[in-house]
């Protein structure tokens, strides 16, 4: 019962219902008995909690009412996304029907033409097939030789065009590398720390030396999000940069700086960078200090010392935009917000390294 009386006293004290005399007495009690003081503090906090709980509840209630009211008055609209699709179909039904029938007619006439023309050329085609098979055999032999020499320990770093580096730009398995790494290849594999996956070439652009691969292996687990981003803007002279790549079978880190805003013979789609690069570094990402990709390493000038070129990251964006125009099912999404800002280099590399792959093309 005493507790109840104390609670009553605290409530009256806090709400100012006490007479001045009572207040003096109570404050004296509070001073002498720490447990009373504790109770006053605790109760103040509790009342505050209870009041803000009430305010929160009434606010929620009000907001909900306002929502309904505005909805009724038409000041806001709840647009159902599904409704859009239905109306789209309805709107273009005729156009779709026309397009479908034209496609049907063309398909029929082409298959007719093919059927009419093919028989005469059978002999020729078989010859061609033979030659193709032969060339496959040759490339297979070369591969076998490479593997053997590797086993014998006399393995030398693969020449550019055979092995390179690639990095994820979309966690679902899209990888950027150099176009020359995968040029003229008939199969591409990407190696991560302990796994290798089969990949397909989605786009290869020789002008900017950028290729986009997609991992088509069922064992690949998509990444939820990538730590780094693609830098849209241009970068400044002297900016410090770093790269990760596979000049050997182990991942190698290198750093340097941006030395010119154009590439070989004034190529404006590339940068010149000062970094030590070896065959196999091709296709590696060039990061700035904030962990944003500013370029893709493409090659070095053999006639000069320490001159390395990198395709600009803008090219990736441009290629994807063009690809999107040509084929709207292509929905690679780039990350524009780097989560590596203000981290020290060791941590940045640790976060990035899982997204870098060794690209092997045969």
């Amino acid at each position, binding site marked *: 019962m005493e507790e109840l009386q104390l609670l009553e006293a605290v*409530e009256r004290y806090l709400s100012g219902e006490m007479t001045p005399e009572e207040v003096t007495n109570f404050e004296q009690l509070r001073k002498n008995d720490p447990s009373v003081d504790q109770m006053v503090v605790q109760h103040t906090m509790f009342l505050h909690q209870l009041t*803000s709980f009430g305010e929160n509840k009434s606010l929620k209630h009000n907001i909900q009412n306002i929502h309904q009211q505005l909805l009724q008055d038409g000041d806001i609209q709840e647009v159902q996304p599904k409704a859009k699709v239905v109306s789209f179909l309805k709107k273009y039904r005729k156009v779709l029907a026309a397009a479908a029938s034209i496609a049907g007619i063309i398909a029929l006439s082409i298959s007719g033409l093919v059927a009419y023309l093919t028989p005469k050329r059978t002999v020729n085609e078989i010859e061609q097939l033979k030659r193709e098979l032969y060339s496959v055999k040759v490339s297979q032999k070369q591969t076998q030789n490479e593997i053997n020499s590797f086993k014998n320990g006399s393995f030398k770093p693969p020449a550019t065009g055979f092995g390179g580096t690639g990095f994820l730009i*979309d966690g679902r398995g899209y990888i950027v590398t150099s176009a020359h790494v995968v040029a003229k290849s008939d199969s591409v594999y990407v190696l991560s720390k302990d796994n290798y996956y089969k990949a397909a070439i989605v786009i290869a652009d020789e002008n900017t030396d950028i290729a986009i691969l997609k991992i088509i292996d069922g064992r690949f687990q998509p990444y939820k999000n990538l730590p780094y981003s693609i830098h849209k803007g241009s970068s400044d002279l002297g900016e410090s940069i770093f790269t990760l790549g596979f000049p050997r079978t182990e991942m190698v880190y290198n750093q340097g700086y941006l030395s010119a805003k154009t590439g070989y013979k004034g190529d404006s789609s590339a940068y010149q960078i000062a970094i030590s690069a070896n065959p196999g570094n091709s296709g590696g990402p060039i990061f700035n200090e904030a962990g944003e990709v500013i370029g893709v390493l493409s090659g070095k000038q053999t006639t000069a010392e320490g001159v390395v070129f990198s395709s600009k990251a803008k090219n990736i964006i441009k290629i994807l935009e063009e690809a999107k125009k040509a084929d709207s099912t292509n929905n690679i999404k780039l990350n524009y917000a780097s989560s590596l800002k203000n981290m020290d280099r060791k941590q940045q590399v640790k976060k990035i390294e899982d997204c870098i792959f060794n690209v092997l093309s045969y």
Partner: protein
Amino acid sequence: MITDSNEKLLLEGLAKDDKTAIETIYKQNYNTIQAFILNNNGSVDDARDLFQEAIIVLYEKAKRGDFELSCQIKTYLYSVTRRLWLKRLQSQQRFSGEINHLAEVVPVEDELDRHNQKAQEFEMMEKALSSIGEPCKSLLEAYYLQKRNMEEIAGNFGYTNANNAKNQKYKCLMRLKKIFFAQYKNED
């Protein structure tokens, strides 16, 4: 710093739970936020939930006397909704790595942490209130939430006088406090 005095008035209104202020904020921002959520695989219900939560976050900020937003209300609400939506996607493992965004964002993480802490406490209070049973729950709500006076409450709840109602209220309050603080300590 914000110079627009209209926005400041809106925030002051919001802090007082003023209907016109909330209505204005709602009208100016709802459709944009909804479009953003719908464009990023959300539903109309998601949009409504998140927008209302964002308003509560803004309210909590205004309530602390913080009327000086470093950005416009529009940007603030967008930033909060965007963060909440990312969190929800991540918790449902639906996050695809990139969110379509166009507008500017401001950092709101700290305030959202504070908001989550508060939401948890409110949940505890809700639980405690519903476990003390009737008539305690209604009695306490009438006095502490609806701020009605003791005479009126005594009449409504059928007590012979205000003093009786008061005694009953103290008993209920004690139980509520016990349950609430028991949970509170467990949470820590």
